[in-house]
């Protein structure tokens, strides 16, 4: 009988620490109009946002829970506190952040990363940003990087109002409506025309409170000819009760502009991650998604690219690692809505220890998208026979002048490959580890390892590769 090599699970110890909720403001659990009113009051919303929240709540109650993905029966909104605020205001200097919270982010390596390789950092702790800073030289380029609350009432208030939940509307799905009702925190970024931000901005989201939800909103507008790399990281300690993340990311990429949006998602295994991300790309613009999904108990995550201008392009590179107790339903959506648009999707998923990984995608080519091209490639690796891996890709093509290709593969580690490597003097254990590492390599090399410090300890798969 063949002996199997054990592949290490994601090492989460470095994220699994927690702070007491002392002096924190915590709204009562549940989801009622009174609670939404209270959040709006706490956040000093302008009237339109107050009304928007209440309307979103109404839509939430009207919409059904998805009937197609992993079960979310364990999530009871009556037990979720939708707003938890640490007893601090947002700071622009790490030294002013309360010691305990500062410790948290230091353990996660955020201040160090800011010093060495980031143009700006936003750090959210539970429902509110506790730190936000952007390098002076980037600020001088006219780049705006601030928290959503400040943006909502500041100089860019009109721009926020014009874009907020216009791409992902509350009618999109039940948890987009929930987000509209109780959102808090997140970042607003505006990159002016022709400005190229050479080093990335990063927002890091930490959910410390048990039985709470995090609903940050990220709104990024990259104007004509500009470029940006934005990194999003997230983690939480593990609790015995369900936590919820229902964030929303809206990206507007102008003519000939470029945005790379990288995410390393490492929520704890009691987290329901029901996140929505969407980009609208104008003529000649480019959106690059790099997505690593490692944590959460249940994930629904499908970044969507709407290619709205001629020649717009999207790339999606993703890796999902589903271990024990995890049901990760990930993938992407692309809508080709203009001529000569192109999309490329390349994903890998690994399932082990009873983990369930589902790759789900859709490529829609509308009648307007003549001369468009799309290629989708997804590969899945099963590391044992108690896990599960599914691929569910859909294509909807409504013009003859399109070139669409799709390929998918599911399998196990090839015995022939192991034999070949062993014949070159490599032990079986190393050979198998090398193959798994190679399987994930073309994705992992795109992940911004040097910026997202937590990635270093994420997988004991010995991923190798150059930094993309």
């Amino acid at each position, binding site marked *: 009988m063949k002996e199997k090599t054990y592949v290490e699970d994601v090492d989460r110890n470095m994220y699994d620490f927690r702070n007491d909720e002392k002096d924190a403001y915590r709204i009562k659990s549940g989801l009622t109009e009174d609670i939404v009113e209270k959040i709006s009051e706490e956040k000093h919303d302008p009237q339109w946002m107050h009304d928007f929240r209440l309307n979103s709540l109404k839509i939430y109650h009207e919409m059904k829970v998805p*009937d*197609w993905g992993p079960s979310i029966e364990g999530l009871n909104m009556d037990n979720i506190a939708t707003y938890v605020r640490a007893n601090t205001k947002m700071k622009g200097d790490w030294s002013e952040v309360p010691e305990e919270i500062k410790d948290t982010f230091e353990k996660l390596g955020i201040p160090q990363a800011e010093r060495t390789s980031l143009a700006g950092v936003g750090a959210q702790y539970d429902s509110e940003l506790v730190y936000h800073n952007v390098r002076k030289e980037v600020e001088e380029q006219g780049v705006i990087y601030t928290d959503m609350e400040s943006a909502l009432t500041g100089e860019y208030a009109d721009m926020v109002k014009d874009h907020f939940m216009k791409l992902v509307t509350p009618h999109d799905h039940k948890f987009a409506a929930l987000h509209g009702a109780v959102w808090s925190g997140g970042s607003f970024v505006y990159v002016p025309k022709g400005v190229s931000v050479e080093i990335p901005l990063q927002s890091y989201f930490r959910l410390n409170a048990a039985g709470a939800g995090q609903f940050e909103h990220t709104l990024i507008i990259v104007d004509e000819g500009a470029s940006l790399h934005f990194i999003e990281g997230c983690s939480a300690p593990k609790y015995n009760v369900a936590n919820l993340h229902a964030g929303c990311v809206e990206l507007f990429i102008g003519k000939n502009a470029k945005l790379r949006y990288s995410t390393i998602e490492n929520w704890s295994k009691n987290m329901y991650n029901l996140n929505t991300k969407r980009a609208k790309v104008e003529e000649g613009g480019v959106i690059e998604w790099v997505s690593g999904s490692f944590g959460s108990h249940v994930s629904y995550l499908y970044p969507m690219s709407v290619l709205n201008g001629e020649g717009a392009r999207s790339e999606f590179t993703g890796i999902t690692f589903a271990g024990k107790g995890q049901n990760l339903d990930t993938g992407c959506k692309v809508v080709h809505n203009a001529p000569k648009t192109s999309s490329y999707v390349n994903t890998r998923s690994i399932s082990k220890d009873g983990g369930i990984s589902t790759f*789900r995608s*859709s490529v829609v080519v509308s*009648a307007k998208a003549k001369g468009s091209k799309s290629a989708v490639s997804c590969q*899945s690796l*099963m*590391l*044992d*026979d108690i*896990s*599960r*891996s*599914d*691929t*569910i*890709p*859909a*294509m*909807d*093509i*409504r*013009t*003859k*002048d*399109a*070139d*669409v*290709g*799709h*390929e*998918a*593969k*599911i*399998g*196990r580690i090839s015995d022939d490959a192991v034999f070949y490597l062993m014949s070159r003097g490599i032990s079986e254990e190393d050979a198998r580890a090398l193959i798994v590492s190679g399987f994930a390599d073309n994705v992992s090399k795109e992940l911004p390892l040097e910026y997202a410090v937590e990635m270093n300890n994420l997988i004991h798969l010995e991923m190798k590769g150059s930094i993309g």
Partner: protein
Amino acid sequence: MENMKINQLPSKTWNWLKMNETAVSGISVSGAHEGNLEIPEGITKTVCPAGLPDRFKDIAGGMGSDMDMLVKESAAGAVLLSADSDVSGEPARIRFAYGASEHSLNTFGILAKEGSNMTVIMDMAAERNDAPVRTGTTAGVSPAAVSLIEHAGLSSVQTKLILEKNAKVTLVQIIRNKNAKTVLNDIGAKVADGAKLSVIHLFLGGDKVYNGCKAELIGKKSNFTADIAYTVADDCMLDMNYVALHEGKKSVSEIRTDGVLHENARKLFRGTIDFKKGAAGAVGNEKEDVLLLDDDVVNQTIPLILCAEEDVEGNHGATIGKLDDDLVFYLESRGMALAEIYKMMAKARIDAVLRFVPDEKTKADVASYLESEGSNGCE
């Protein structure tokens, strides 16, 4: 049945894509069609007025339980074909010639006993080739007159198969009923150790054609292949659901689809390879190539791989697009008109599958039909 839900995906996806299932309404059946059955020596035909024997009851078809309900409600009886030896030299031929307003349902059982080998060919055609005329498509006919001869018929066939150990069945179905507004065709099979089921589907006509096909590979080294070719034109629609369910160790499935869409045609292809736990050593492949010839076509493709077993290999691929410009230029430079090129390409796709049909008579008949009809499915 007033409302049927058919061709459900084994694992649902986003509802907005409208691919999870298909709703069909207003289906009513008045009885079985009197087909012409040519049954060769070695195949036994048994008429079953009360439906198929019990051992067929738990076989699920690709269309799902609503189709079973329709069969039950119709009480149209069934015909059982069985073989216990190799009788593949001469196929059983079943020819339907549907009238313009028929609403029929036929049920067949195919029992291939251990080690047997049989071929069954079902040709679902219209009574008269010149019968179909659709509203607004015929010059010189008043709208009122056209509506009188608009397609109204329903032809439905359900076939359940049992392949015992090392049995082999080739089932060929040619669907070209241009008299039907709606065609329902459903297949369900259980395939035992070492048995092999080959399904050949040629979709050449019918306003709205719904096809379900599910093979449960329950036996070790059981095998299922589906070779599918279609040409859909005009305002016609083809809705398919193929499922290869791997339960047996080292079971193998191949689903190969090749088709052409013209004019305002719509097509939805669902193909699923489902590896159940325990199907160690199983291999499943599926592939679809779609040629889009006109701008108003709608192509939907959703190929699934569901996997609960580590030691398997599953692959799927799809290519969707128009004819290569260089090829069109080359053929035009040789004097071919674009319409001829399209016709040739559509015919080539049908021919590629037709060559697998193990019956020269059927091949010649279909080739002649393609020649006269222009490969356009429902023009």
